């Protein structure tokens, strides 16, 4: 198991945003988390990536407990994520936005910067190469020198994924990668996610576009009111009564 959560719980005051969730993600698979709005999906991501401390429960990465690690150290281990809203720097180019993504794999510090040491130059070149490499993977080589404020929403999503890839992750968490983009572009993004997965990357995504999820995911977990109500293959999830009830309300058997 690449990532496992055990009895993961997060309470905000009296509200249990995530309640006793056990979930495991196998290496090399595309995992998906779905659920109605406010089901705790993003909170679940925040718990794994170190943004929130869980109230109780543990998160394991390759069997190592990472529950209490700060977000930047979790990133260093090879767990990367994107946000629902892409928070890129608008005034700067696509390439410049992505270069810093490889920073965590470099060692040069302030002294290197002031003295412009060989190490700094070498690492800068490495970061640039890495950025071009990941931009090629997401299909943005042509747009590398464009200012972020002038590219489309879909290209911004791709840039955010490129930035996450530049950290050299083993698993990438995508928070609603297809939100706010049109069906054609969604198709393109689905292809990209499949391509990333084929290259060996484990993926976990939150998405509302059911068509996309059912096409893409190997393994789905459904959250509702912070609790896991179902888990399985797309086929199983489609037939699951609890899921149908959560999405459509009322009882499916009535």
């Amino acid at each position, binding site marked *: 198991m690449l990532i496992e959560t055990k009895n993961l719980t997060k309470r905000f005051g009296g509200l249990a945003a995530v309640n006793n969730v056990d979930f495991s993600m196998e290496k090399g698979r595309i995992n998906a988390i779905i659920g109605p709005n406010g089901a705790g999906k993003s909170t679940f991501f925040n718990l794994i*990536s*170190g*943004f929130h401390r869980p109230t109780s429960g543990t998160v394991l990465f390759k069997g190592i407990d990472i529950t209490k690690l*700060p*977000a*930047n*150290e979790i*990133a*260093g281990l090879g767990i*990367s*994520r994107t*946000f629902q809203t892409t*928070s*890129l*720097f608008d005034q*700067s180019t696509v390439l*410049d936005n992505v*270069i*810093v*993504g490889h*920073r*965590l794999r*470099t060692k*040069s*510090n*302030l002294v*290197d*910067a*002031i003295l*412009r040491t060989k190490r*700094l130059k070498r*690492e*800068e070149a490495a*970061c640039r190469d890495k950025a071009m490499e990941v931009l090629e993977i997401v299909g943005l080589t042509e747009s590398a020198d464009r200012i972020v404020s002038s590219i489309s929403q879909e290209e911004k999503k791709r840039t955010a994924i490129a*930035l*996450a890839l*530049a*950290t050299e992750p083993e698993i990438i968490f995508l928070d609603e990668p297809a939100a706010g983009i049109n069906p054609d572009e969604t198709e393109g993004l689905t292809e990209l996610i499949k391509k990333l997965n084929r290259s060996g990357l484990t993926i976990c995504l939150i998405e509302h576009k059911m068509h996309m999820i059912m096409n893409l995911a190997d393994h789905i977990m459904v959250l509702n009111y912070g609790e896991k109500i179902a888990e399985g293959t797309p086929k199983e999830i489609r037939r699951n009564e609890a899921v149908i009830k959560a999405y459509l309300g009322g009882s499916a058997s009535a």
Partner: protein
Amino acid sequence: MKILTKRNGIIALIIFAFSFPFIAQNDYYLHMLTLSFIWAIAVYGINLLSGYTGYLSLAHAGFFAIGAYSLGLLTVKAGMNFWLALVCACLITCALGFLIGLIALRTKEHFFAIYTLCVGYIIYLVIDKWEGLTEGVRGLIGIPAPGNIGPITFDTAASQYYLVLIFLLAVILIVYRIIRSLTGRTYMAIRNSEDLAQTIGISTMKNKLTAFVLSTFFAGLAGALYASFIRFIGPDIGSTAIMFDLLMYLLVGGIGTLSGPLVGTLLLVILSQNLQFLQEYRMLIFGPLLTVIIIFYPRGIAGAFFDWQRKRKDNTLSGVRGELHIKAEEG
């Protein structure tokens, strides 16, 4: 070959700066420029933290005063050699900056600005009230001018001008190298989004603290140079009025730009010297000017210039693209 390149422009500016004492026969202009260079060093410090790392500090007049008083006390009361005192003054400022940064950086945005405003005021109060050490409102007098380096002395206006100019150029070079390096990219990533910076593996606290300490170093250096240049210091140099002057220089020149601190400081110091006859009514000009700049040019004069340059470049580019497009259609 283009003659009007950026590089040649900078070289011309540096040559002009070095030949200025020969052009200006008047010591008054030299004095004014030297003083604005000293302020500019402090503004570069603020810019590194507020412009590039995204933390608006209002404590830097306080750190400026710490630098000035450290140098003043070490030379006047402890009789220390000027150059040694200069180094110590910077180190003292950094050490206090480190301790204050450790606490202040736990806050963000407005809270950080308010917190540091209070810190700045407390520094001012300590200097003002601790008469046993700082002589309080009487101020420190008789601070020595920079000591000789071998045959070079610093007793004329021109030699002091050169000394400060060299410090300023060194500061600009350091800031330039930082912002163009991976470290600078790290700071800008923090300014852009601290959450995102963390997810790409950046230890935000460590980097913010480094930027904070470095920015207090520049403020302290400027303060120490000020003390030895003016030879007299009072608690007022750490007052909030000075802080907002420095902030105004930064905002008008261009926050988060490399040339902004110098442009803003020179422009406003010279402007305010020439408007001396208006006395306090000068603020009637500065107030609206600042408001207009913040509304229309949030990145100041330097930012506005670069935006204009980029737009012009984009236009010519899109013009070329348009022509290609037409040709392709014709073909």
